[in-house]
C-alpha cells in the first residue's frame, strides 16, 4: 500500500512538472476595432488560437475607439492592470511614451521572432518610434482613398479604357471634373464636412502634396513658409463646398450614405469603408460598379495622410512580464504580421513588406490599386498633441471645418489654428 501511494505521489509530481513545462500562456488582448474590420480581426484571433492550441490563447476584449481607449490604456498601465498586448495607433505613440504607458520593444526581442526594420516601409516603422526606440510594431497602413462610381464616371466621360478614372489630377482639373459630374449628379463629391476626421485627413494630404510643414523641428506649428500652402489647401477644400459639388456640414455617416445610395459619383474616405462597399456589392444592394484609387495629386507630388494600426505592450507598473509571457506576446505580434493578408480584406494595406509584396496581395482589389500609398504616406506630426482624437483633431473641428463651410476664411482658420496649437504646446 505504501508503495502504491509513493508511486501515485511521484507520478502526480511528474505530471505537474510536465504540465508546468508546457504551461499554456494566456495573452490578454485589447483592441478598439468594432466595425467591419473588427469582424475580420476576430476571425484572425480565432485562427491564431486554433493554430496555437495548448500553447498560447488570446483573450480578446474590444473597447471604445478614441479618447476613452487611450485614457484607459494610460490609467490601467499606471496601476499594472493593462493587457499583455493591444492595438495602438502609431500616431498616438508620442502620447503613450510621454505618459509612460508604453513598454519599449527591443530590437533583440523583435529579431528573435524575425521582425526588423527591413520588413516594413521606413516611414511606417519610424512612426512606431520615439527617440530611436521602438514602442509599437506596425500592422497596417491605412489612409484615405477616392471611391468612385464607375457608371457615373463613364457617363461623364471620366473613365479611362482600363476602367480607372482619368483627368482627376491637379486641383483645377479636379474642379473641371466635378463640373462635368454635376450633369449626372446633384452632389458629385461626398465627404464628411463637419467635425474632425475626414477634414483633417484631406487637409494633411493636401499639405503634404506641397511639402508643407505642419510642425517644425523647433516646435513651431505652421512655420511661416508653410502658411500660404496651408491656406491653399483649405481654400481648395472650401471651393468644393462653395461650388456646390460637396455637401455642406455633413456628418460622417451621411457622407457614406450619399455615396452608397448612388447619389455621389466620388467619395473621399478611409480604406476602412472598403468592407462596407464589398459587403453591399456582394449582397447586390449597391446598384452600381465601384472602385477605389489613391487620392488624386492636387498639387506638386503624390502624398496622402496615413496612420497605422500597430501592436504595443503596455508598461504595466509593478507587474513585471515573465519571459514566457513576453515570448508569447512577441509570437502574437509576428504571427499577425505574417498572416496580415487577411487583414487586407478590411481595406488596410499590410505593413509587413513580405505580405505587401506577395503575389496574392498584388492582385487583391481594390487594395492593389492604392497600395502605392505605402510609399507616399505622410504620417501625423510627431507630437503628444497630434494623432487620433487629439487636440489637433479638435483644432480641425474648430477651424478647418468652419472654413470649409464658408463660416470663416482660410487665412483666418490657419492663423487661429496656429495660435491655438502653439498656445497648447507652450
Amino acid at each position: 500500500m505504501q508503495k502504491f501511494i509513493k508511486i501515485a505521489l511521484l507520478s502526480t509530481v511528474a505530471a505537474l512538472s510536465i504540465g508546468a513545462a508546457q504551461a499554456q500562456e494566456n495573452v490578454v488582448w485589447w483592441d478598439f476595432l468594432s466595425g467591419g474590420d473588427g469582424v475580420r480581426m476576430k476571425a484572425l484571433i480565432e485562427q491564431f488560437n486554433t493554430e496555437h492550441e495548448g500553447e498560447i490563447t488570446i483573450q480578446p476584449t474590444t473597447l471604445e475607439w478614441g479618447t476613452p481607449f487611450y485614457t484607459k490604456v494610460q490609467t490601467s498601465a499606471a496601476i499594472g492592470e493593462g493587457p499583455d498586448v493591444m492595438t495602438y495607433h502609431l500616431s498616438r505613440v508620442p502620447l503613450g511614451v510621454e505618459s509612460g504607458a508604453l513598454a519599449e520593444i527591443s530590437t533583440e526581442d523583435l529579431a528573435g521572432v524575425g521582425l526588423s526594420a527591413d520588413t516594413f516601409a521606413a516611414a511606417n516603422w519610424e512612426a512606431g518610434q520615439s527617440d530611436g526606440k521602438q514602442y509599437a510594431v506596425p500592422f497596417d497602413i491605412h489612409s484615405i482613398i477616392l471611391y468612385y462610381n464607375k457608371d457615373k464616371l463613364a457617363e461623364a466621360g471620366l473613365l479611362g479604357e482600363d476602367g480607372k478614372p482619368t483627368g482627376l489630377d491637379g486641383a483645377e482639373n479636379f474642379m473641371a471634373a466635378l463640373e462635368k459630374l454635376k450633369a449626372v449628379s446633384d452632389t458629385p463629391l461626398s465627404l464628411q464636412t463637419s467635425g474632425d476626421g475626414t477634414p483633417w485627413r484631406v487637409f494633411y494630404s493636401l499639405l503634404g502634396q506641397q511639402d508643407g510643414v505642419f510642425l517644425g523641428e523647433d516646435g513651431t506649428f505652421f512655420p511661416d513658409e508653410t502658411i500660404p500652402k496651408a491656406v491653399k489647401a483649405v481654400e481648395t477644400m472650401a471651393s468644393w463646398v462653395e461650388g456646390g459639388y460637396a455637401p455642406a456640414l455633413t456628418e460622417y455617416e451621411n457622407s457614406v450614405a450619399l455615396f452608397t445610395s448612388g447619389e455621389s459619383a466620388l467619395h473621399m474616405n478611409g480604406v476602412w469603408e472598403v468592407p462596407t462597399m464589398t459587403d453591399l456589392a456582394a449582397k447586390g444592394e449597391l446598384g452600381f460598379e465601384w472602385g477605389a484609387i489613391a487620392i488624386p495629386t492636387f498639387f506638386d507630388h503624390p502624398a496622402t495622410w496615413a496612420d497605422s494600426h500597430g501592436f504595443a505592450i503596455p508598461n504595466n507598473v509593478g507587474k513585471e512580464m515573465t519571459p514566457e509571457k513576453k515570448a508569447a506576446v512577441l509570437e502574437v505580434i509576428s504571427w499577425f504580421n505574417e498572416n496580415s493578408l487577411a487583414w487586407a480584406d478590411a481595406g488596410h494595406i499590410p505593413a509587413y513588406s513580405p505580405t505587401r509584396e506577395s503575389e496574392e496581395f498584388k492582385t487583391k482589389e481594390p487594395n492593389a490599386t492604392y497600395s502605392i500609398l505605402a510609399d507616399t504616406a505622410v504620417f501625423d506630426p510627431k507630437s503628444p498633441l497630434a494623432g487620433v482624437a487629439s487636440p489637433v483633431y479638435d483644432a480641425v473641428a474648430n477651424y478647418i471645418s468652419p472654413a470649409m463651410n464658408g463660416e470663416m476664411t482660410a487665412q483666418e482658420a490657419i492663423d487661429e489654428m496656429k495660435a491655438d496649437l502653439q498656445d497648447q504646446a507652450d
Partner: protein
Amino acid sequence: MIRNYRREVAVAYLLILPFVLTYGILFLWPTIQMVYLSFTDAPLIGPGSWIGLENYYEMFDDRRFWTAVRNTAYFVALTVIPNTLIGLAIAMMVSRLKGWQQSLILAMFFLPYILPVSVVYRLWNWMFNIQFGILQYPISAIAGENINVFRTQWLFTPAVALVTIWWTCGFNILLFLAGLRSISPDIYEAASLDNANRWTIFRRITWPLIWPVTALVLTIQLILQLKIFDQVYLFVQGGRPDPSMVMVQYIYSLAFQKNQGGYGATVAVALFVIVIVFSVLQFQLLRARGEK
C-alpha cells in the same frame, strides 16, 4: 432616570462614523488631493513636481478658460431662472387638476426626467436632424431653409438649454407641487371671501408662501447647471468643441485628452470655488428676501 452622558456620546459617534468615514474618504480626501494637485505639473496619472501658483497664473491668461467660464455663465443664465419659472407655472396648472388626471399629467411631465442623458441626446439629435428631423418642418417654415441647429454656433447653447429644461423640469414641478399642497386651503377661502382676484392671490399668498421652495429649487438648479457637462459633450460631437466649451468639459479635455492632470485640477478648483461662492451667496440672498 440617570443618563449616562458619555455612553450616549459614544453611541452617537459610532452611529455617525460610517457617514464620516465615507465622506472623508470619498469627498474630503479627494478634494484635498485636488487642491494639492493644482500646485503641481502632474500628468493624468502619477505625481508631478511642485510648481506653486504657476497653474493659476496660466489659468488667468488662458483664453480657453475664459471661454469656458463665459459659456457656463451663459448656460446658467439660460436655464436656471426659466427652468424654475416653468416648473412653478406647470405645477400651478397641474395643482388645479384632481385625482387620476393630476397623476397622469404629472407623470407625463416627470417622464423625461428619468431618461438617461444619452437617450435624451439621441431623441433630440434625431428630431433636429437636418435631413429628416421632425423639427425641421417648423424651422424651415420660419427660417425658409433647414438648419443644422447643433452645428450653428449661435444656436448651440440655447438649443442645449432648451433640451435641458425639457429634460429636468419634471423634478422642479414635483417640488413646487409639494410646496403648493402645503398651503392651507383656508387662506385661499378667506382671500376669496375678501374678493381678492387671481393675481392678488398669487402675489400676496401663493408667491410668498412658496418662496422657500423657490429658493431651494433655484439653488439646486444653480449648482447643477454650473456643473453642466454631459449634454454639451454629446451634442458637440462632430461640431466645434472650443467655442461651445463649458468648464467641466474643459477639465475633462485637459486631464484626459491633453494629459495635464495638474492644470486640469486647477480649473476644477476654480469651478469648485465658483460653485461654493455663488450657491452660498444666492441661497443667503434668497433666504434673506424670504424672511423680510
